């Protein structure tokens, strides 16, 4: 079992997941179908686990050293976190998101066979890499969803039929997203200690990740004590997401960018 078998396995997995996703969409109309969707999701997940285990045995080392292997782990763990979140919070869209993202990573691997063996630069070869990236993937997705809810809230406000339930949904999403964000930040700190010798160096990306964290911290504290001031809360939520976007895409364009360890474009 090596990467040679990957096209076969990944095709099976993605087909199973796509069928699952179709059933998931149908389940919005017919609830009972959801079980069938889950069946396909789990089946696909079992196949990916089989592939990972066999690859691991074949390579005789944890498959965590190359770009292709990293994506394989994303595809493995995204559904797992998706399921745990679904079991706890019953957001179907979130389950769908995790499987779409996982399929996307498999597709990227399928389309770029040359990256199967492309080893990562030394600093990135760490067991912290995958959890660090994974929790951020989830955090950004959930926080983005909270912003969509905020936009809906604004629109409703404008129309004059604002329902406080909208804001409560946003609250819950922010809490989930913020917990992932905290984990991402702290995993990053623990990794940095192993790789660079210090857990926090105020690297530009770290600064903006910290700012994102503070932005949502303001929202959470504001909501906690001013449950009725919905407009201000929505504004804070929107601003926090702007900071998140700067952290995600914008840092490379700021005057501070060239001092960052998070720019890997040359690799």
């Amino acid at each position, binding site marked *: 079992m090596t990467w040679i078998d990957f096209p076969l396995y990944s095709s099976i997995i993605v087909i199973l997941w796509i069928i699952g996703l179709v059933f998931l969409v149908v389940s919005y109309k017919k609830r009972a179908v959801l079980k069938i969707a889950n069946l396909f999701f789990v089946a696909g997940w079992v196949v990916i686990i089989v592939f990972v285990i066999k690859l691991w045995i074949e390579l005789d080392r944890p498959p965590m050293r190359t770009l292709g292997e990293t994506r394989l782990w994303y595809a493995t763990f995204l559904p797992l976190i998706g399921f745990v979140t679904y079991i*706890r*919070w019953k957001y179907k869209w979130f389950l769908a998101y995790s499987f779409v993202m996982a399929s996307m990573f498999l597709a990227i691997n399928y389309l*770029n066979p*040359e*990256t199967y063996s*492309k*080893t990562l*630069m*030394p*600093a990135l*070869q*760490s067991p912290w890499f995958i959890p660090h990236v994974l929790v951020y993937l989830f955090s950004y997705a959930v926080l983005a969803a909270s912003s969509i809810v905020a936009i809906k809230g604004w629109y409703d406000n404008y129309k004059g039929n604002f329902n406080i339930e909208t*804001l*409560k949904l946003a*609250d*819950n999403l*922010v*809490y*989930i997203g*913020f*917990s*992932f964000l*905290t*984990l991402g930040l*702290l995993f990053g*700190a*623990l990794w940095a*200690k*192993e*790789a*660079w*010798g*210090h*857990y*926090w160096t*105020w690297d*530009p990306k770290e*600064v*903006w990740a*910290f*700012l994102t964290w*503070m*932005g949502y*911290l*303001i929202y959470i*504290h*504001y*909501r*906690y*004590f*001013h*449950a*009725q*001031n919905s407009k201000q809360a929505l504004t804070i939520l929107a601003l926090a997401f702007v900071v998140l976007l700067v952290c995600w895409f914008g*840092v490379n364009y*700021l*005057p*501070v960018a060239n*001092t960052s360890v998070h720019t890997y474009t040359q*690799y």
Partner: protein
Amino acid sequence: MSENNIRIHRNLWENPWGYVESFFIGIGIIITGLFLEVFSTSQNAFTLSYPYNTIFLLGYVLVLLVLYKWFTNSQIIRWLTKVPASISSIVLVTILVMIMGIIPQIPSENKLINNLGLNHITSNWAFLLILFQFTTCLGLISIKRILQYKWSNLGFILNHTGLFLALTAGILGTGDLQRLSINTFEGKPSWIATDAQKNKIELPFAFYLKDFLIEEYNPKLALVDNKSGSIAHNDGKNLYLVEKGETYYFNNFEVKIEDFLPNAIRFGMRYEPVNEIGSPPAAKITVKNVENDSIQTSWISSGSFRYPYESLKISEDYSVVMTIPEVKKFSSDIDILTKEGKRINTVLEVNKPYKYKGWKIYQLSYDDKMGKWSNLSILELVKDPWLPLIYIGIFMMIAGAFYMFWMGNKITKN
């Protein structure tokens, strides 16, 4: 329901203090800090080292306890344990960090930036003072919740107390943090390290570098524009690795790699494998122009610090070049020689530091001009006695994050 529905008209500084007063105080603190920046003559960052930082932390926590226990009725303490004070300090810390995220934290030509110390925010008095208010709020509410002895406060305490510990220990610990680097050479013992200020420091043990090893990737092939000299395909990303027998396509050129030698030197018309310092990789390639079926065969090489590179010009516009191999992994096989005459062998690698007598030893760097022939390995030694406290804080916050994920927003849910 909330104070919003019943608007109470009250004057500024009347009980209890709200947002206006909070920001008033917070901005006042920042302005005070900036004044200190402008008028203080000391160039050095303010740090405390052992035992003063330990005394400071213990004293600080003690004062917070005393304040909470016996002075809760005072205006200031009541204000510090309420939300407006927390939110204003979070916002103001955020603003100062945002300045750090925009203005590069390096020596500046700009007078305003220099005078206000905006290029060294982390040691700026304004930042330190507002952070002090932030941690004071955090400390007081931590004490408040802990002393309530309720299980429902668990998540709150993990998050707030964890952050308090990580922050205070992190800031106070900088005074005791030691980061040294040491150059070690193959076959020689080294025990003189240098700190950030280039001071020489003698270590109580020595490093003997037995072997420094670099693993490299194969070099890559690239199509280069003859005029601009820049890479002319795939935007310079995902270049092809040079491997014997592979065929790649660039625009309308078919490039076949006939032979690849990781270490080679030119002898007349061809390259021969050698085992010599500075011998670069070389490959024999055949390039076929699909349009007119013309074929060229030649050797190319990435070159090294000792030998020039060789490329192949395949048309008026383009050449095929070999890139310098990238590093896959580097490691140092070292012995630590102790004063007692013991030898401790270990292999250092990026992401795999070694712990010895309170030091963490890292593989930092090497002579990149020499690349895989480097006899020099640069190690870093870090001693951070405050780390356990910081880790307790971090792990409390991690536990708090899991708690938060699981509980969600239970407060506004009902």
